[in-house]
């Protein structure tokens, strides 16, 4: 888990937490929305990924203060944010390269 490149579900989970801290259900919904319904995570997949990210200290868990149910929420750690930025930079580079190559081929 703690290695780049990331799988798509993990990348989407991290992107979901990049904007704001979220609890499990909110992450599921946000991932589905971000991918236009293409990636629908099951709870097993989500919590497997969350556990690995917690173990690798990319995210941290805390109890939501506003919630009456005392739900656990997740947020990115500085290390997680740094790694996410690295991954996004890598993808940007790849996209730029791919665009260049494809454009050359079309000429």
């Amino acid at each position, binding site marked *: 888990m703690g290695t780049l490149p990331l799988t798509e579900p993990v990348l989407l989970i991290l992107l979901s937490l990049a904007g704001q801290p979220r609890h499990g259900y909110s992450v599921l919904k946000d991932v589905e929305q971000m991918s236009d319904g293409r990636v629908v995570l*099951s709870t097993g997949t989500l919590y497997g990924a969350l556990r690995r990210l917690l173990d690798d200290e990319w995210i941290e868990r805390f109890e939501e203060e506003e919630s009456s149910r005392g739900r656990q929420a997740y947020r990115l750690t500085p290390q997680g944010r740094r790694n996410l930025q690295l991954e996004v930079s890598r993808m940007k580079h790849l996209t730029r390269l791919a665009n260049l190559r494809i454009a050359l081929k079309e000429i």
Partner: protein
Amino acid sequence: MLRIYRCLLYLYPAVHREQFGDEMTAVFRDIQAETAPKGIAAHAVFCARETTGLLAGALQQRVRALDRVSVWLLFSTRRFTMRTEFRFPKSTPALMTIILAGIILAIEKAKAIQASLPATNPHIGPIQPAHFTFLPNVVLALAFFYMAGMFGWAILFAMHRSGVHRLADVSGEQK
């Protein structure tokens, strides 16, 4: 379905279940409530997704638990994932194979030498000891270790009586 879900959660390692079990059940309940009005087909898809997700997740967590006790060693393609201070270098399997091959070759060579010896050397027969000395030697060794133990215990007892062990409690500061 919720009951089945809870049962399936028992496939996970206890640590994972204790940490995330309630939360997973709560999220599952939320999604189930959201899917229910969408019809049977949507509910069936949801159930299938959750069941396969749980089974795959449980398997993954079990493998992770095994990985921690280094049973995954044989299948690992990276450095062996043991505790950091006990990591083997990548070349270990190759070196161990070479050593094993060397040992097998040496054994085979020794067998060949042994087989060729009767033809060149006359048979001598079993060598018998002049006196049977095994038991007296064992008794002597036991007596020696007993005496050494007694001597060590006597030293420790004398040190304890002298109060030297209390020196460990003395700190540099004066009270």
